[in-house]
């Protein structure tokens, strides 16, 4: 990882107090490489390195640790700051039901996350109703129904289109005292105008308290395109990053946060329904730096 690289580069600088501008440039080159190897977006890296440079030069003289450690420390703190602050709160409405819509690309983990979030809120004392609005993917509703059954949560999916289904779900929620609606949607490309419009319409009609972008942690450079499109076209309130139980460095997290400035609220860390955790900026910063 990066701290090992710095051990070697700065062995010879031990004892010297201040980092020269040249030392900073070299160390930033290594940081840049580490971030790009972690799949952080090219343009996001450029901007981040530029912003960090000032701080690294300014602070290098103040601490009593090796210059190499200082740069890594500054980078880690800055990365944590950009990824944070920690925010894993769900906006609960004072006028139930609270509506949470899960959106994102095909296969990112929306249906599984919908169920996981349902289980999480149930643990917290809420009574969620899962809503299956994906009428396109074969057996999508069946998938959510099986997951709902596993968690002891009701699943609603009757209706001719997502708007119609949500209308029915809302009526059911009100009549049965389910104060949270978790709406699973069909996966879609951010460049599919028709399907993005469908989400815009859903948001306009139902005014959800949360629109969560569910994104795969292994996503590469494309993460900025996806995030920018969902934030720009639809407007999101937060992000869930899935499949962090793999060995992907997760640079997509920085890319997404940097271009949307919306909080990453939760992470998926497995296929089972309890593999769901609040997002921790400090831990993902360490993971990205390798």
């Amino acid at each position, binding site marked *: 990882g990066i701290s090992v690289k710095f051990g070697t580069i700065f062995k010879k600088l031990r004892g010297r107090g201040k980092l020269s501008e040249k030392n900073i440039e070299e160390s930033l080159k290594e940081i840049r490489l580490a971030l790009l190897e972690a799949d952080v977006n090219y343009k996001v890296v450029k901007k981040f390195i530029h912003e960090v440079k000032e701080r690294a030069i300014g602070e290098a003289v103040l601490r009593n640790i090796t210059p190499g450690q200082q740069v890594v420390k500054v980078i880690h703190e800055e990365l944590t700051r950009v990824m944070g602050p920690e925010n894993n709160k769900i906006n609960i409405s004072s006028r139930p039901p609270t509506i949470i819509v899960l959106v994102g690309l095909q296969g990112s983990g929306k249906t599984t996350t919908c169920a996981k979030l349902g289980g999480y809120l149930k643990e917290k004392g809420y009574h969620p109703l899962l809503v299956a609005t994906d009428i396109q993917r074969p057996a999508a509703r069946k998938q959510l129904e099986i997951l709902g059954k596993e968690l002891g949560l009701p699943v609603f999916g009757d209706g001719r289109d997502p708007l119609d289904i949500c209308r029915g779900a809302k009526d059911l929620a009100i009549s049965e005292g389910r104060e949270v609606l978790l709406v699973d949607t069909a996966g879609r490309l951010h460049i599919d105008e028709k399907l993005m419009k469908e989400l815009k319409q859903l948001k306009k009609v139902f005014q959800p308290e949360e629109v969560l972008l569910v994104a795969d942690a*292994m996503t590469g450079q494309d993460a900025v395109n996806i995030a920018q499109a969902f934030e720009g076209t639809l407007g999101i309130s937060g992000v869930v990053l899935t499949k962090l*139980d793999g060995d992907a460095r997760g640079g*997509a997290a920085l890319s997404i946060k940097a271009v949307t400035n919306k909080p990453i609220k939760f992470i998926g860390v497995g296929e089972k329904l309890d593999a769901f955790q609040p997002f921790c900026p400090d831990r993902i910063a360490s993971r990205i730096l390798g």
Partner: protein
Amino acid sequence: LKFRGKINSEVLEELEAILIQADLGMKTTAKVLEKIREERLKEPADIKPFLKRELVSLLLDCPRSINLSASSPSVILVVGVNGVGKTTSLAKLASRFREENKKVLLAASDTFRAGSIEQLDIWGKRIGAEIIKHQYGSDPAAVAYDALSAAQARGIDILLIDTAGRLHTKKNLVEELRKIKRVIGKKKKEAPEETLLVLDATVGQNALSQAKLFKEALKVTGIILTKLDGTAKGGMVIAIENELNIPVKLIGTGETLGDLVEFDRGEFVEALFS
């Protein structure tokens, strides 16, 4: 000469941005840019064409058809991490064989994920292929074995085996795939004739790690690269073909049965720059 050097370094920086943003990865990008520098091209206009030729040369020059055996049924095993498009790609491939009037059987060896069996069942009905399925929680290898027996008994031409998504880092899950291979290999020596790794074009440099581990465990014979209808370029396949010698056989360009296209080296490289 100094002026030309400056122009060339600007062109190189521009190309670096294109290659990295196309998900070629740091290693491949550095490698090709170094080749360009070594070439010492006189005209900046020569750089991009040289680069394109270089990228094409990193991709394999080989046949990319699906390996079918003279002795039926040919068995195709479909593997990959979660959500990349295995089940949908399997259905698309099966549909192609159905269009050639081949007798096709599907094995629902994903006995874990909610709705996986129903999902494959619906695809089977759409394309006119029967499906062998057991209960959820049953042994995936048992389903595969059962399907191969049925395929042999029914004179099936092609058997396609759908498996559960699994991260390449989960040793016990990868072992489960090795067991499926062993079990069907005992029943038919050459099977599976094809082990297809499905990769998602939106995945970054982790794709190489996926390909490495699946190859080590299973000897992957080909790749299906999905979701190229999005904005991701799937550049990681260049490193995968070059370092692991696994050819991309097909690409997924959408969610319906017809959205399966042959992989062409030249077209792929051109698309990196569009």
